[in-house]
């Protein structure tokens, strides 16, 4: 039995039944990494020693029947924008190349306390800015389904690691689709929770009105179990919301009969790959056969979302990244005076896409342009949010494709920033409105690349999208497909 291929919930059952140990499971995951990561490049930093130590402690807890947390003994990967105490954290940027955090992000503390084993830190687009993982200052990650293609971004390393069984599950962050788009590209499940559902304390900030932490997993049940472990209010994050956390995994089995499913016509337009549309429409019919009520809806401001997002996100990024001044951490260039020191340090430390976004955001916030760009974008953002408020008056969940196309080729869009931005077209409205959304596999194109379907829920109603996703999974086998064997 290949232990690394197990889902989190099956591995957890075997661990608690004493059939396997966390040490065996962790060793299996590291063997898988050794066999495949030279091709995939999912990880920036591995912590084999730390992981095996955590595994031994998890085994002691399992033997003592101390706790039955679903994450106890489970090897997990973290995107490298989660601070991990004592373990290098780079955000895939040269400016943080040697940074050793002095504390754990709240979500990292939570999964550690639940007994998870931290395998290592996964690659991303620098500061989570990108849709392909090509913007990493270190190296691009490759898609386990086809090494010539991108794994998606920005959580491309986490997605590739889970798809290639290099971790049982992972955490990512999603500001404009950075969990869901790579999940779709790599054929796994990715959940962006509601804004406020999960603490961002200790996450390297990109765009604070949209950043959110979420699970990347092999199936919907796994995503539900990880969300249970990381959700909840945190005194260290004033945007996290004081609401009780449901037992998501206990609600999965309820039927979908009578559930109202909205299909936004603006998401099924030119530019959508025919095979993606066919797969999503087939999935919708599957839900209809289970008794869900399908209704076409309209989200009329969808076409403005990319423009709004790349103003708001870059404005917030330009502000958040002002802290990288080379004074207290990171590299520092030497120059003739203080201002030049800042400028040279940042010029040498940031990559092209990060500089582009800082420039765009600074421009949008600068005197004379603030009203025309930033304020205008925030007004249109209100219209986008209202579209969803209106839609959710008569439906319980909205179904769309996660991406317009399956994973594109490495190098295909890197020279054209606007084309790259447009690859987020189906995911960013959700961040602008602060809603939860789940991406799960619903087919493959003729080239063998995975297709993702997106389920969008009402604010704080992760329960319904997880339930619908789980129901769909029970009727299909897509989530069980594995990438073609990667040569040893």
């Amino acid at each position, binding site marked *: 039995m290949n232990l690394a291929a197990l889902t989190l919930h099956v591995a957890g059952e075997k661990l608690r039944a004493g059939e396997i140990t966390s040490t065996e499971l962790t060793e299996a995951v590291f063997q898988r990494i050794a066999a495949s990561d030279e091709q995939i490049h999912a990880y920036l930093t591995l912590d084999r020693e730390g992981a095996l130590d955590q595994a031994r402690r998890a085994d002691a807890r399992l033997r003592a029947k101390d706790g039955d947390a679903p994450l106890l003994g489970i090897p997990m990967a973290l995107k490298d924008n989660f601070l991990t105490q004592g373990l290098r954290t780079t955000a895939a940027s040269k400016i943080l190349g040697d*940074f*050793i955090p*002095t504390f754990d992000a709240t979500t990292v503390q939570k999964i550690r306390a639940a007994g998870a084993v931290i395998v290592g830190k996964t690659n991303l687009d620098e500061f989570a800015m990108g849709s392909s993982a090509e913007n990493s200052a270190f190296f691009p990650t490759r898609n386990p389904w086809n090494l010539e293609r991108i794994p998606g971004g920005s959580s491309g390393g986490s997605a590739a690691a889970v798809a290639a069984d290099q971790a049982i599950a992972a955490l990512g962050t999603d500001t404009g689709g950075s969990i869901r788009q790579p999940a779709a590209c790599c054929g796994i499940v990715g959940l962006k929770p509601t*804004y*406020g559902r999960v603490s961002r304390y200790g996450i390297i900030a990109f765009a604070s*009105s949209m950043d959110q932490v979420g699970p990347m997993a092999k199936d919907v049940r796994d995503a539900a179990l990880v969300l249970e472990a990381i959700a909840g*209010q945190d*005194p260290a994050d*004033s*945007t996290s*919301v*004081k609401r009780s956390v449901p037992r998501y995994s206990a609600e999965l089995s309820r039927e979908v009969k009578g559930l109202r499913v909205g299909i936004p016509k603006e998401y099924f337009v030119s530019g959508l790959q025919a095979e993606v549309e066919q797969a999503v429409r087939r999935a919708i019919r599957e839900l209809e056969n289970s008794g869900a009520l399908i209704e076409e809806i309209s989200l009329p*401001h969808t*076409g*403005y979302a*990319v*423009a*709004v997002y*790349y*103003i708001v996100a870059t404005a917030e990024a*330009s502000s958040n990244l002002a802290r990288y*001044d*080379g*004074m*207290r*951490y*990171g*590299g*520092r260039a030497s120059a003739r*005076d*203080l*201002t*030049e020191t800042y*400028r*040279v340090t*940042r*010029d040498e430390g*940031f990559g092209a896409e990060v*500089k*582009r976004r*800082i*420039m*765009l955001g*600074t*421009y949008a916030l*600068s005197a004379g342009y603030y009203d025309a760009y930033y*304020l*205008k*974008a*925030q*007004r*249109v*953002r*209100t*219209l986008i*949010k209202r579209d969803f408020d209106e839609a959710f008056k008569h439906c319980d969940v909205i179904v769309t494709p996660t991406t317009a196309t399956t994973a594109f080729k490495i190098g295909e869009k890197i020279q054209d*920033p*606007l084309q790259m931005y447009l690859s987020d077209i189906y995911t960013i409205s959700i961040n*602008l409105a*602060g809603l939860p959304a789940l991406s799960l596999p619903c087919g493959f194109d003729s080239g063998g690349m995975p297709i993702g379907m997106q389920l969008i829920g009402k604010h704080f109603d992760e329960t319904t999208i997880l339930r619908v996703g789980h129901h769909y999974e029970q009727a299909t086998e897509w989530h069980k497909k594995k990438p073609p064997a990667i040569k040893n």
Partner: protein
Amino acid sequence: MKITAEEIDGIAVLARLRLTAEEKSQLVRQLDNILEYMDKLNQLDTAQVEPFSHRVDTMPALREDAVTNHPDPEALLANAPDRDGTFFKVPKIIE
């Protein structure tokens, strides 16, 4: 043109970025292209629309303003590009 090379220079100073001539000419073209795309927002009349904000009614109450000193100053200082004992050493600010 939505943006000029001179504007790029001014923004680079505000953003504390130094850009090479090549980066600058590339940015003029790329930002111009992106800003032109952003123009589509002007198709919408938003005079009566409030700018977006997250609902705050579910945000938590203020917490106690308690001192929480970092337990390990040495670990913090270990990341410093330059230090003098227990101090961060920074370039001269006033001539």
